C-alpha cells in the first residue's frame, strides 16, 4: 500500500492551509483518513490509546445492519413476484431472481441516501473547516431500511435534507443532536407525504399498478378489523423470519436479532435499552391480553380488540425490533446514564404498544422513540441528581455531626 500512501502524500500539500485547494481539505482529509489511520500520536495523559475510534464504531453498526439489508432485498422481490404469481402474470420465480430484483430496487435508494446526506455533511464540514464526522455512515444506511420500497426518490432526498440539517447539523453535528436523524427523516416523510408512507399499496413493489392487490401491513389490517385475513395469511414464523409487508429493512426479526448480536458482542449498543424495551413491550402486551376483553366489551373500544388480542406478536411486527435495536440504542439521542437507559428502554417498549393499540397507530414505535429522545435529557437529569443528592447528604451529615458535637 506504499504507492497509495506516496500518492496521498504527493497531493497533500495542495490541501493544507495555503495550498491550491485548501478549502477542500475536509473532503481530502475524509478520504485520507478513511484509507489510512492518521499518524497522530498521544501528547499528554495516557500514552497508549485503544484501537477503537469513531470510524471503527460506525463500521460495526453498518455491518450489523447487513442481515436486515439483505433480507429486505429478498423480501422486496418475494412480495413483488408473489403478487404477479397471484394474478397469473408469472408462473414462478427463483430465490436469486427475488433477491436481484430487490437489489435493483434498493440500490437507487441507498445511493440517494448516501449521496444527499454525505453531500450535506461535506458542505457543513467545509463551512466549519473540520473533517467529516462519521455519524452519517450509519444514518445513511438506516434511512433506506425504514422507508417503503416504492417511495419516490425525490421525496427521500427532500426528507434527508430536512433530517440532516434540522435533525443534526443545526445542533452542531454528530454527537450534539437531540433527535435521531434517521427517525426525523422518516417522521418528515410520514407527515409530509402520508399517501406514500401508509395505506395498503405502498409496501409492495409495483402494487399500485395492479388493481385489486393489497399489500397492507399486519398492523394496518388488524386496525381495520381484518383479523381473519391476518390469521390466514401470516404465521408467527412468517413474522419472525420477516416474510411480511413493511418498510424495507424492518420486517425480519431474525435478521435484526443477528445484527443485535453483533452490536452486543462488540459492546457498541446498550443491552440495557434492548432488554428493558422488550420487558416494557412484553408487559404492555400482556396487560392488553389480560384486560382486552373487559375493556372492549360493549364499549366504543370494540374495534381495537384484534390489536389487543394480537398479544406478544406485537414484538415481531411494526418495526418494533428494528426501532429497539438500531434506533433506540443510538447513544447520542438516548439516555446516557445506565439507570437512565433502563427507564428509557422500558418506556419505549411500554408506550409503543400502548399507542399502537389504543390509537390504532402502526407508526407508534417511530414516534415513541422520537418522544423519548426529547425526554432522555430529563430522565438523565433526575438520575444524575440522585448522585448529587447522595454527595450533598454527606456534607449535611458532617455539618450536623459537627454542630451536635
Amino acid at each position: 500500500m506504499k504507492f497509495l500512501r506516496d500518492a496521498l502524500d504527493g497531493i497533500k500539500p495542495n490541501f493544507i492551509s495555503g495550498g491550491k485547494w485548501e478549502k477542500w481539505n475536509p473532503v481530502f482529509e475524509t478520504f485520507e483518513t478513511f484509507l489510512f489511520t492518521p499518524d497522530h500520536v498521544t501528547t499528554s495523559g495516557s500514552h497508549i490509546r485503544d484501537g477503537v475510534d469513531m470510524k471503527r464504531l460506525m463500521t460495526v453498526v453498518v455491518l450489523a445492519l447487513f442481515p436486515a439489508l439483505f433480507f429486505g432485498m429478498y423480501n422486496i422481490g418475494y412480495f413483488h413476484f408473489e403478487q404477479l404469481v397471484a394474478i397469473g402474470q408469472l408462473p414462478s420465480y427463483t430465490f436469486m431472481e427475488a433477491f436481484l430484483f430487490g437489489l435493483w430496487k434498493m440500490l437507487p435508494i441507498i445511493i440517494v441516501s448516501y449521496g444527499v446526506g454525505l453531500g450535506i455533511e461535506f458542505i457543513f464540514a467545509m463551512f466549519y473547516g473540520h473533517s467529516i464526522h462519521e455519524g452519517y455512515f450509519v444514518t445513511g444506511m438506516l434511512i433506506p431500511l425504514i422507508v417503503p420500497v416504492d417511495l419516490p426518490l425525490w421525496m427521500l432526498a427532500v426528507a434527508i435534507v430536512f433530517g440532516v440539517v434540522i435533525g443534526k447539523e443545526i445542533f452542531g453535528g454528530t454527537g450534539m443532536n437531540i433527535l435521531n436523524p434517521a427517525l426525523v427523516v422518516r417522521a418528515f416523510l410520514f407527515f409530509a407525504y402520508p399517501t406514500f408512507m401508509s395505506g395498503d399499496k405502498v409496501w409492495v413493489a409495483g402494487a399500485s399498478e395492479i388493481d385489486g392487490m393489497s399489500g397492507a401491513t399486519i398492523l394496518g389490517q388488524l386496525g381495520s378489523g381484518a383479523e381473519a385475513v391476518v390469521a390466514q395469511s401470516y404465521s408467527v414464523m412468517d413474522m419472525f423470519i420477516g416474510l411480511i409487508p413493511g418498510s424495507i429493512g424492518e420486517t425480519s426479526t431474525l435478521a435484526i436479532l443477528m445484527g443485535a448480536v453483533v452490536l452486543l458482542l462488540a459492546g457498541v449498543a446498550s443491552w440495557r435499552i434492548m432488554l428493558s424495551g422488550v420487558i416494557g413491550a412484553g408487559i404492555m402486551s400482556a396487560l392488553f391480553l389480560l384486560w382486552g376483553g373487559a375493556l372492549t366489551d360493549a364499549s366504543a373500544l370494540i374495534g381495537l380488540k384484534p390489536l389487543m388480542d394480537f398479544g406478544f406478536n406485537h414484538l415481531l411486527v411494526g418495526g418494533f425490533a428494528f426501532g429497539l435495536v438500531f434506533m433506540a440504542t443510538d447513544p447520542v439521542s438516548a439516555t446516557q446514564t445506565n439507570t437512565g437507559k433502563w427507564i428509557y428502554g422500558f418506556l419505549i417498549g411500554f408506550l409503543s404498544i400502548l399507542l399502537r393499540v389504543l390509537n390504532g397507530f402502526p407508526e407508534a414505535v417511530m414516534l415513541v422513540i422520537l418522544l423519548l429522545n426529547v425526554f432522555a435529557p430529563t430522565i438523565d437529569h433526575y438520575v444524575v441528581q440522585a448522585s448529587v443528592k447522595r454527595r450533598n447528604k454527606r456534607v449535611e451529615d458532617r455539618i450536623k455531626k459537627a454542630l451536635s458535637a
Partner: protein
Amino acid sequence: MSQDIRIKRGVDIKLVGKAEKMFANVPQATVFALRPDDFHGVTPKLAVKEGAQVNAGDTLFYSKYDDRIKFTSPVSGEVTEIVRGAKRKILEVKVLVDSEITYKEFNTNASSKEEVIETLLESGAWAYIKQRPYDVIANPSDKPKAIFISGYNSAPLSVDLDFALQGKEKSLQKGIEIVSKLTTGKVHLSVDGSQPSSIFQNISGVELHNVTGPHPAGNVGVQIHHINPVNKGERVWVVTPQDLAIIGDLFLTGKFNAERVIALSGSEVKQPRYVKTIAGTSITNIIKDALKAGDHRIITGGPLTGTKISENGYLGYYDNQITVLPEGNKHRFLGWVPWLYNSIFSMAGSSLASKGKEYVMDTNKNGEERAFVVTGEMEKVFPFDIYPMYLLKSIMYNDIGEMENLGIYEVAPEDFALAEVINTSKINLQKTVREGLDLMIKEVG
C-alpha cells in the same frame, strides 16, 4: 476496624515488558535535575545561582506563593545550569554531582506536629505529601481529616512494591509514625488483597485495607472514595510508599536521601528490570544500550500517566518508573477495520483484558478527536459514584457549581487515565480534569 474494598469496574492492561525482579547494574549519573513542572501549581522562585555549591537537602527553589514549601537538591554538587523556556520560565535546575554525596543535617528530634512539619518543609520532603482534592502539594496549614497510603500498584508495568521496598521496613514504619502526627484522623494503608505483602503486613499504627480488583483499584483516589470520601471543604493527604520510606529515612538518619528503586519497563526495553537510583537522575546511563532499535517514546512514569521525555531527559521527582514504548507515528492502511487492531474492551475488536496474553501498544491515537458519542464506556473503568461524562462536560463549560455537585473534589487526573485509553472520541480527559481542578483551586481554593 478495617474495611476491605472490592473493585469490579476497571481493567488490567497487560503490556509486554514488565520489569524482572532483579537489579540492573547502572553507573550513577553525573547530572541531576529538578524540574518545577513536576510540582503542579508551584511557581518556582530560585534560591541558588548558577555555580553555587549545594549539599543534598539544600534548597534549590521554593514556591513563590508559599515560601515555606522548599524544593531541595537530591544530591550534592555544583548548580551548573538553570534552563529557562519561554517567558523565562524555569524548566530545569541542573546539579553536577560530587564524587561523594554530602548531606545537610536536619533536626530529627521532632515530637510535635509543628516540629515534624518544620523538618519536612526544611528538607524538601514536604513535596511528597500531596492533598486531595486537586492533587497538588499539601498546604502545611491545613488540617487533613485522614492520610491515605496506597500500597497496591495496579497500573500497567508498575513497580512491585514488595521488591522495591525490601529492606526498608524500618524506614516505612518510621514514616508511618511521622505522618500519623500530621493528622488527628486515621492513617489508612491499602494493600493488594489478592496476594499478601511481605512488606506491609507487619506495619503497625495504620488502618489496613485489603483492596482487590483490576486497575484503578490501586489508585489512592479510588480507595479514598470507598473508605472516606472527600467532601467540600475537607482535605485528605496522600503519600506513596516509596516516598514514605524516604521520609522515614530522613527522620532516622537526619539526611534527605531521595534514593528510590525504579522499574525500567516497556516493550522497547531489551531486558526490563529494576534500577536503584536517585530522584532527578539523568536517564542517559539507564537507557544506554538497554533499548531495542527503532522509534521510541521514553516516558518518566507509567504508560497511563507519565510524562514524555527525551533521551537526555531526567527522572521525574515522583516517578518510580521509566517506560519505553514504540512511537506510533505511522499511518495504518484501513486501520479502522474491526478486528484488525487490538481493543482493550470487546468494543469492536479482540479483548486484551480477557486474554492472558501480553500486548505491545504504541503511542498512536488510533483515530481522530471527535465529540462525545458513545455513552457508558467510561463507567466500565471508573469505579466511582460519579458520572464521568457529566463531570467532564461540566469542566468543559466551566460550571463550578455543577463540577462541585458532580464530584470534582473526589477525582484526580490519574483516575481518568483508563477512561482516556478506551475513549472512542479520543479526547484528552486527564488534561481536561487537570484544567477543571486548576479552575477550582483558583475559584474555590
